[in-house]
């Protein structure tokens, strides 16, 4: 099959959806001529023009707030917040306005908004450009939270997010943009709220998100040589969370390790672990283990940053620990 990078897959999703639906517009800082700081919106300005591909000032609150208004008035905004770290400036518009309006107004306001953003460390971009804040958004009823790990998933999930009538917070890990993978040319959707088993195995379930999916798969390859069969589950959508796929996997393997780059304290793994403890405790043969970043801001120095980001070795040792090996 044809290969695209993660960034190209997202670009194709935007392009195909914009061709299909004239109510879609894109707005954000440097999304026009520059084509997005990571190239995701490259070429959209040339194809769709300035009306539908809008460079904005540095004005995050108005970027999301205007998307709320435009969506309520009948458009389908796909807006970009350049780094997830910048969302603090615009948070009210996201969690008090976009997320709550449908509910507060008795289900009458349709708000088809996609807020795309980047997360993650690995570029030595330090504490204000490297965070993984997905758990914040999982805590807000009314927001869908999407977090793809492959080019294939990125395209299908973005198309579904654009077609969804709810606000979707779509998180792209910046270290994945260059990752290549099979991507069909035709438009396709991947339903939100459905996890994907990235590798089957019978001994232990590893639930991993975004960039950590790939480290989990590398760890699984290595552990396979030692006879340990790891099942890697990628939730793909963090809210709503596909509990069923995770629980079914745990019922099969009886062991659970959760891996994410967000800090461990109150990270997405806390929710997943609690959910499994509540709903599948009897199937577990060992305590659940979380592999996550330590409870610190992201440090700058490469030595410190690599100590900070969860490694393949952290995953293999956590797997061995839950298996008592």
């Amino acid at each position: 099959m044809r290969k695209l990078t993660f960034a190209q897959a997202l670009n194709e999703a935007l392009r195909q959806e914009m061709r299909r639906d004239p109510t879609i517009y894109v707005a954000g800082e440097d999304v026009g001529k520059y084509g997005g700081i990571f190239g995701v919106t490259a070429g959209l300005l040339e194809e769709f023009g300035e009306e539908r591909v809008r460079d904005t000032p540095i004005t995050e609150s108005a970027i999301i707030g205007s998307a709320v208004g435009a969506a309520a008035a009948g458009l389908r905004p796909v807006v970009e917040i350049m780094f997830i770290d910048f969302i603090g400036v615009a948070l009210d518009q996201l969690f008090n306005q976009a997320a709550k309006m449908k509910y507060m107004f008795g289900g009458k306001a349709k708000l088809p908004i996609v807020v795309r953003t980047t997360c993650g460390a690995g570029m030595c971009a330090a504490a204000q450009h490297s965070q993984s804040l997905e758990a914040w958004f999982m805590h807000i009823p009314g927001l869908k939270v999407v977090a793809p790990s492959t080019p294939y998933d990125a395209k299908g999930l973005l198309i579904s997010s654009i077609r969804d009538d709810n606000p979707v917070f779509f998180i792209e890990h910046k270290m994945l943009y260059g990752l290549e993978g099979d991507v069909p040319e035709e438009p396709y959707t991947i339903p939100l709220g459905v996890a994907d088993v990235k590798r089957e195995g019978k001994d232990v379930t590893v639930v991993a998100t975004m960039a950590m999916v790939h480290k989990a798969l590398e760890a699984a390859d290595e552990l396979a040589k030692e006879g340990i069969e790891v099942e890697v589950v990628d939730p793909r959508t963090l809210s709503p969370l596909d509990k069923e796929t995770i629980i079914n996997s745990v019922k099969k393997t009886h062991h659970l390790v959760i891996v994410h780059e967000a800090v461990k304290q109150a990270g997405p793994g806390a929710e997943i672990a609690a959910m499994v403890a509540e709903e599948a405790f009897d199937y577990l043969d060992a305590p659940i283990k979380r592999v996550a970043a330590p409870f610190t801001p992201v440090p700058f120095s490469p030595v410190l940053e690599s100590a900070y980001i969860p490694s393949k070795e952290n995953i293999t040792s956590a797997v061995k620990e839950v298996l008592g090996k």
Partner: protein
Amino acid sequence: MPVEKEKLIELYRTMLKIRLFEERVAEIYWEGKSPVFNIAADPIPGEMHLYIGEEAVATGVCAHLRPDDMVAGTHRSHGHYIAKGGDLKKLMAELFGKKTGLCQGKGGHMHLFDANLHFGCGGIIGAGIPHAVGAALAFKMQGRDNVAVSFIGDGAANIGAFHESLNLAAIWKLPLVVVVEDNLYAISVPKSKSTAVKSNAERAAAYGIPGVLVDGMDVMAVYEAAGEAIARARRGEGPSLIECLCYRYRGHFEGDPQLYKPEGEEEEWRKKDPIPNFRAKLIKEGILTEEEANKIQEEVAALVAEAEKFARESPWPEPEEALKHVFL
């Protein structure tokens, strides 16, 4: 009022220090980034936003400041820090991510902090403006005649914090000076497409404070405008806004292809380059001889070389350092 000879030479030396420091940083940055661009590669990892071309602004403003006056910088703040009297060695070591850096390698080039100089900066656009408002509030409440200066880019003047801060500083009559460095672009977006007024100086009227537009490529023009605003703040007469029209010769960050800049634009601005122009002026007016100017150049280059050597030879932090300083 005529400016003393020593002050003029100091202005020249400071601009040159910023320029030579950053030119060397750019060279070192690319050492590890070619042929394949890996942003996290040594010796200077991460994003790099250089101030080259804008030196007259930081220099002209900070020349009026004392060590205990406060400066809130931006993501592009090497120049502000150096102009405030910053330590080149610690600054360079921080850029390298070394243990001896200004922030022990925790912050990197966007997140610099020096308590002795009351200097801080960060990576979130506009976030420093309310910090400067707070410092100004503290100075006023403490009965000190210090001032707080917030440097921002023209892009930051469109974010809520800018407007909230100016209003608050105006109603509380705080000793604040906001200096907008209008380098024509917010990353790639030209000011004409981001800003509803021609000059941000006009926005001062909305808060009932003085606002002036000055040539940010002319260190004396900046020096004079800043002198007035800072003196006014010290007298307890409240905040001011200064917009300095200037140009960044390099990209928003190193590696930015700069396709948004029209052809020939940089050449036009090179003619206004504050450093060679000021040097020529000082020589013409008999303030400096060619020999003296060359000597300053050599002295400054030696300082930069010393800072580089210090950074290269400094140790990395221990990995466990990552866990420290979350709480005190």
